[in-house]
């Protein structure tokens, strides 16, 4: 069995179900499996933003959830908050807020972020209470496990796992090489 030996590949390609920034026609697709409470993902968030500024329309970026719930007690709820914002077309705004405030992911903060983004807070809170986004987050997690995600953050460049670092230079080099 060579599945582990080969450079792991994304088993579920980016599609309409994904949250994507950048044009669908971009030559490079960067996919991140991340956890909003993971400090390494917080660091990677800045790198990704810089890479997107530099590469511009020649890349697109998709974010999938990989919450490590047993070590990050707020990670699952934060992922649900991003999805709940997503149903009101504010996924990326919430995604950015969560990564910019990784030490403030408790429910009262999530509700404040929802209000700041002018979401329908009642609907947002109801979706968190009833955990309607859990299956979707689980789908992301499973696709990650099947694709060789072994920790967070894990990136894929055009469907192939990026095994280098996630500092600006490493990510920029990996994305540029795929252009």
């Amino acid at each position, binding site marked *: *069995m060579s599945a*582990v030996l080969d450079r792991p590949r994304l088993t579920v390609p980016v599609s309409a179900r994904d949250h994507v920034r950048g044009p669908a026609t971009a030559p490079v697709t960067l996919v991140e499996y991340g956890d909003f409470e993971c400090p390494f993902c917080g660091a990677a968030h800045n790198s990704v933003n810089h890479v997107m500024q530099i590469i511009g329309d020649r890349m697109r970026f998709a974010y999938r959830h990989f919450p490590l719930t*047993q*070590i990050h007690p707020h990670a699952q709820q934060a992922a649900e908050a991003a999805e709940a914002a997503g149903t009101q077309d504010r996924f990326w705004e919430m995604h950015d807020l969560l990564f910019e405030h990784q030490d403030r992911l408790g429910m009262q903060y999530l509700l404040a972020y929802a209000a700041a983004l002018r979401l329908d807070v009642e609907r947002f809170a109801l979706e968190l209470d009833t955990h309607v986004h859990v299956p979707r987050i689980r789908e992301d997690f499973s696709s990650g496990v099947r*694709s060789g995600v*072994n920790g967070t953050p894990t990136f894929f460049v055009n469907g192939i796992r990026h095994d280098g670092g996630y500092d600006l230079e490493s990510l920029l080099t990996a994305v540029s090489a795929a252009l």
Partner: protein
Amino acid sequence: MTTTEYPTRALEPGTAAPGFDLRSTPDQSVSLADFGGRRLVMAFYPADWSPICTDQMSLYNEVLPEFKRYAAELVGISIDHAWCHVAFAQHRNLHFPLLADFHPKGEVAQRYGVYDDGTGMSKRALFVVDEGGTIRWSYVSPVGVNPGADGILIALESMAREKAA
């Protein structure tokens, strides 16, 4: 004194899984026989607390429900003492047993052919054992590489398919 009675490479699929009886806590033991009739994933790893082992065990902790869906149990095995395992498992909130291959040191790893004499630790190795106690998949990862869970899940999936066929 020598390890010649032990396999020099990781045991291959088709081999009967060697028995073991190891402490999971200072006053509890876990043996291979405890898993009779269940599938078992055995994850040998070098050491509690080291960064890659921590990531690997944390990942398996999250994937545990998927393993259980395939009727598989999971154990981690290293040469650390049971007290060390208890602290590590509590710190990372692990929900599966960590077994102490502590005394005689690394003996179970040696029986499975995955002891590293140079470092005095186990290699980073995975075994999937079927309901009858036969190894169905094994893999030794470079020690610095977290092997993830995809190989394990593929193995469990193919075992489930065979059983259904």
